[in-house]
């Protein structure tokens, strides 16, 4: 499948989602908004995992994006949703770019623990900062969009549409990145970093780039989540938040962008209904589900269609091969 065809499919998916949003009940609209914005943070984890980095600290960037979006309104008087989301993503990307060169020196458990440590430092700072609401966090005012006030039920749809649009654009770019030369080198680093160095490319630079991309995506996800919830608190940076992102990333696998959002949506559905019907044991259901995926589909749900496209005979004779490199739409 060509990149253009895949991107067209992504565009069509966004259009369908926008259409479905018009008829979806309010609870589903809200749940999908949360799933899609969380999906961005999970996509960041997938980008990093695909490049050989295991993060337990994606919550840091999720929180930075959320808090910057909130502070942009309360401290700088910026009310426009698009500007606030972009600021959230940029701020998280800046933090990511600053720590990436340090973290890229490490691999495996050391890398994972350092990311966890950074997110827990952020959690500690946010919890102790009375100016930022301490452990309770603080509420956000309703955003505007291009100068228009968002009120009533239409506000929910506009935030949903904004989230879907950002998710569509970010996913399309990640898809392009996965197929790019940098994206392929990133995949090679995961498989054999030593050989990548001997070929003249930098495995550290590749990991640092993936980390920065992951931080931008985490920030965008946090910003959109903050707008949807109308509230931010330090739990955005807590390790359980990062753990949920890793959970969904494992569920999705790193071979498909679409699988990330399916996994995120599935997680939100399970969480919502489990909380409703068996609130004290819903983590048990999630744990069993993850165990089944790891045992029977270790490549994640994305491998269901990504693997099929790689099987012998899947490609027509004479057709020019494309870099699957572990990526499907």
């Amino acid at each position, binding site marked *: 499948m060509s990149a253009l065809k895949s991107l067209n499919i992504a565009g069509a998916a966004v259009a369908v989602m926008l259409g479905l949003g018009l008829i979806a009940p309010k609870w589903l609209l809200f749940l999908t908004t949360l799933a899609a914005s969380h999906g961005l943070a999970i996509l960041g984890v997938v980008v990093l995992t695909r490049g050989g980095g295991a993060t337990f600290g994606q919550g840091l960037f999720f929180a930075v994006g959320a808090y910057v979006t909130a502070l942009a309104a309360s401290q700088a008087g910026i009310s426009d949703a698009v500007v606030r989301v972009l600021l959230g993503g940029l701020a998280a990307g800046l933090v990511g770019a600053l720590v990436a060169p340090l973290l890229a020196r490490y691999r495996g458990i050391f890398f994972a623990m350092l990311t966890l440590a950074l997110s827990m430092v952020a959690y500690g700072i946010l919890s102790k900062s009375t100016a930022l609401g301490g452990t309770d966090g603080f509420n956000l005012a309703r955003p505007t969009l291009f100068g228009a006030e968002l009120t009533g039920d239409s506000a929910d749809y506009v935030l949903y549409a904004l989230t879907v649009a950002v998710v569509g654009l970010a996913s399309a770019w990640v898809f392009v990145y996965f197929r790019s030369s940098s994206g392929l080198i990133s995949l090679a680093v995961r498989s054999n970093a030593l050989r*990548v160095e001997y070929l003249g490319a930098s495995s550290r630079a590749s990991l640092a780039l993936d980390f920065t991309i992951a931080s931008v995506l985490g920030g965008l996800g946090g910003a959109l989540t903050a707008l949807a919830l109308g509230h931010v608190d330090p739990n955005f940076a807590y390790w359980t938040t990062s753990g949920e992102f890793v959970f969904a990333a494992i569920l999705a696998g790193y071979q498909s962008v679409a699988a990330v959002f399916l996994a995120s949506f599935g997680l939100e559905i399970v969480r919502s209904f489990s909380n409703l019907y068996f609130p004290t044991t819903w983590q048990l259901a999630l744990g069993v589900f993850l165990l089944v995926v790891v045992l029977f589909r270790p490549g994640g749900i994305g491998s269901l269609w990504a693997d099929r496209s790689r099987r012998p005979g899947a490609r027509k004779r004479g057709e020019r091969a494309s870099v699957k490199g572990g990526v499907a739409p």
Partner: protein
Amino acid sequence: MTHLLSAKGLNKRFGAVVAADDISIDVPVGQKLSLIGSNGAGKTTFVNMVTGYLKPDAGHIKLEGMDITSFTPRHIARLGICRSFQIPQLCLELSALENLLVAVSAADPEGLSLWKPADAEDRHERAEELLDRFGLSSYAHRRVVELPGGVRKLLDIAMALARHPKLLLLDEPTSGVSAEEKFATMERVMGGLAHEAATVVFVEHDMDIVARFSERVIAFYSGRIIADGQPDAVLRNTEVQRYVTGMTQ
């Protein structure tokens, strides 16, 4: 004579083990040089020092007059010294074509791109040309993990060629290949290299291959050079026969 590579007085110790003891080697442009010696003699240590994986305790290495002793493998690769490995270093999850696209992308003078496809027309053609040159076209879409050892060896060497290296170091290009296939494999390697202007240094244990494919042979023993010259002369050397080939008369 112009020396492409010049190593002077290299020393390397691993604890009590002397892996390189005052090793000095000049390699002229275009030469096909083989390094022989028993296991632990210091051949791979020399290759690892030249490619930046190991830093010598003493001595220096120059490429076309530039001191590269303290350079990293990445910088050295960019300067034109590439290598293959005794155990092929490949990306097992990727196909043969994708492995070559990794190599071709890393070697692209335009650098890496965040949006230009890895399989853009020019890169794809180069990767397929390398596959074809080593007779690997039929394996293009097979994952490396499914490929036989001999094919992996050739793919490893093809990847090292993606950068059009000035100096190519091949660490035991026929190890792991069956005795019947060794000559065919080496013929294919040398056939593939015929298109390149690369100077070739290869580590080899098979003396028939050494005699047939090299213009010069250096024999190592216990971290030292015990013979250096044309293949016939080195292979007749009594020290080489005693310590390396085991063909004492």
